[in-house]
């Protein structure tokens, strides 16, 4: 009986210790956000003076929402966020579909040339975007598009030029390949024997089993797209199509409006956080399903 009590107490200590560790690590990671949000409430000079001390993380001094008001006056923030969310959302959606489909084909189907094509796909991970930006610009500038105005050439100043080139990406494909590999072949074969087509296998067997991978691929792709800077700069020459990271430059004037920068950053982080929190459900459910213990 006392043994059980000791065990319970030990258990409690262990849990407390775990929380202590989790919180300690959290402190290491949370401070940029705290800094960002707290700073967004301070006037420029105070913000800059506070950076050298712990005051940087405390909402002390002259606190107000003035920076937010000023930021909205300075730049069409709603427009930027709308553009980014639209471009990012569509790219992630199409990307998840096509990349997972390809991942399935590479991981579970046998076809001639599969290994070599996969190697080439993975090799494209190496290519930094900066190095292909200029040739890509020349290419999209000559591409045709069939739209409401009939057949037009040149994709500049549009949403499609920010979406279509980035739908397929090697990281997502690679991610799907590695995770689909872990799915047992037996379930696929069972479905095939039941008369399912390969398409149905993908849709009814693979996709439902792969919540966490889709969530992971989605968040990683979302971040990459949302933070795009160089490409939209090159192809979106009007404010109409400008995304958030280009919009950030509105605040870097000769005298940088640091408080507004922080306000703007706090605002544009919200869509990412919302997206991440929505996807967390996928993580939680799958943990509950697999019942993994630490």
């Amino acid at each position, binding site marked *: 009986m006392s043994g059980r009590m000791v065990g319970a107490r030990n258990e409690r200590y262990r849990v407390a210790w*775990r*929380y202590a560790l*989790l919180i300690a*690590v*959290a402190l*290491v*990671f*949370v401070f*940029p956000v705290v800094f*960002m949000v707290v700073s967004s409430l301070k006037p420029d000079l105070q913000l800059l003076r506070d950076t*050298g001390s712990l005051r940087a993380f405390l909402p002390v001094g002259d606190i107000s929402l003035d920076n937010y008001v000023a930021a909205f006056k300075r730049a069409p923030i709603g427009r930027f966020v709308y553009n980014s969310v639209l471009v990012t959302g569509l790219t992630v959606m199409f990307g998840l579909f*096509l990349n997972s*489909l*390809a991942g399935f*084909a590479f991981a579970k*189907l*046998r*076809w*001639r040339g599969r290994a070599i*094509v996969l190697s080439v796909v993975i*090799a*494209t991970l*190496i*290519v*930094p975007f*900066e*190095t*292909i930006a*200029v*040739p*890509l610009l020349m290419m999209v500038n000559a591409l045709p598009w069939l739209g409401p105005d009939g057949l037009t050439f040149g994709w500049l100043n549009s949403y499609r030029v920010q979406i279509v*080139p980035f*739908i*397929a*990406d090697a*990281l997502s494909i*690679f*991610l799907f390949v590695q*995770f689909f590999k*872990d*799915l047992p072949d037996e379930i696929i074969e069972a479905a095939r*024997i039941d008369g399912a087509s*390969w398409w149905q296998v*993908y849709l009814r067997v693979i996709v439902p089993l792969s919540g*966490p*991978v889709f*969530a*992971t691929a989605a968040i*990683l792709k979302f971040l990459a797209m949302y933070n795009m800077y160089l490409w939209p700069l090159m192809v979106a020459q009007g404010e109409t199509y400008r995304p958030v*990271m280009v919009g950030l430059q509105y605040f870097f004037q000769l005298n940088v409006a640091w408080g507004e920068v922080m306000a703007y950053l706090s605002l544009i*982080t919200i869509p*990412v*956080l919302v997206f991440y*929190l929505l996807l967390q459900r996928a*993580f*939680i459910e799958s*943990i509950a399903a*697999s019942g*993994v213990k*630490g």
Partner: protein
Amino acid sequence: MHRIPVKPVPELVRQAAASGLGPGRRGEEAAGLAMAAPAVILLVAFLITPFALAFVMAFTNQRLVSPNPTAFVGTRNFTQLLTVRPFMMAPLTDPESGATLRDDTGAPVYPVLRDITRRNPDYPQFDGLRELASWQLGERRLYLLASDVVFMRALRNTMLFVLVVAPTQATLALMLALMINQRLRGVNIFRTIYFMPVVISIVVVSLLWRFIYSPGGLLNSMLTGLTFGAFTPVDWLGNPNTALGAIMAMSIWQAVGFHMVIWLSGLQTIPGVLYEAASVEGASALQKFRHVTWPGLRNTAVLILVVITMQAFALFAQIDVMTRGGPRDATQSIVFQAVQRGFERQDIAGGSAISVVLFLLVLSVSLLQRYVTRERAR
């Protein structure tokens, strides 16, 4: 078009035997191609084609801004980038006696290196080269001369960065993923917090860390406070000995959440029954990790290794914001050089040449990685 019947019979038999289920695999070839095609075609169109163009450009004099016609220049861009030559320099001698010239302290006098490397008809092979390193060997001096000293340093720094950051980041990310994968109340909050630095763009994070690392910044004032003043403030980004380390630390911190998420989705594919079985057998936590978790993470580990290496090789934004390659080239990186040359200096051909070198370098590293991981699997 489908030509399975034409295949030699033994191969068909082998295939059927391998799958164990001949009929269940019908239409596989066509389905595989069809499913892979859309993504692959997009990659070819928007990534491989422009890269091929960049590859071609590396052999031209193409500029970003220029009225001059583009022409092929062979491997000029690569020679200007990669030439490294040793040069043994002897002290000056008296033309009559042949004795070594010495200054007042008796030390030998050497020719000025730049007289040799700048349009000197006697040494055409050294023209335009600069000192990368030098050693004193007795009274002679051994120089290692390079045509692009900055690029050589970028190469060294990037390799060092990859060697330190990739394994550290992968390990820490795994530890975080394990911590976060516990069944504890409120663990979701921590999962979100650990991911925070990834959510905020690297450009912004770099700006912030410039404040933290500054001589009068937060890191120094905290260290001074914790040691009751015993700590002498360090100019983290201004000192060539600490700058790269400071950037490494920040980079690990920033991206560790990214890889934590990948490890996490790997952890979640390990069936819970395996852990339960291990518990029944009385396995310790460490044993569970070694015999259940780690084997179950093999595919994830390969993925992370490859991705983390490639990301580390792409080191750019931190450098651009925090140090611009300084102090004294201590933080130059390959991609920073590629961007600086291609965009800022408008030498798009030179920038492309750097990317080609980077591509070949990373390709060989990943082939090596593949070879190594394959060995282990056996």
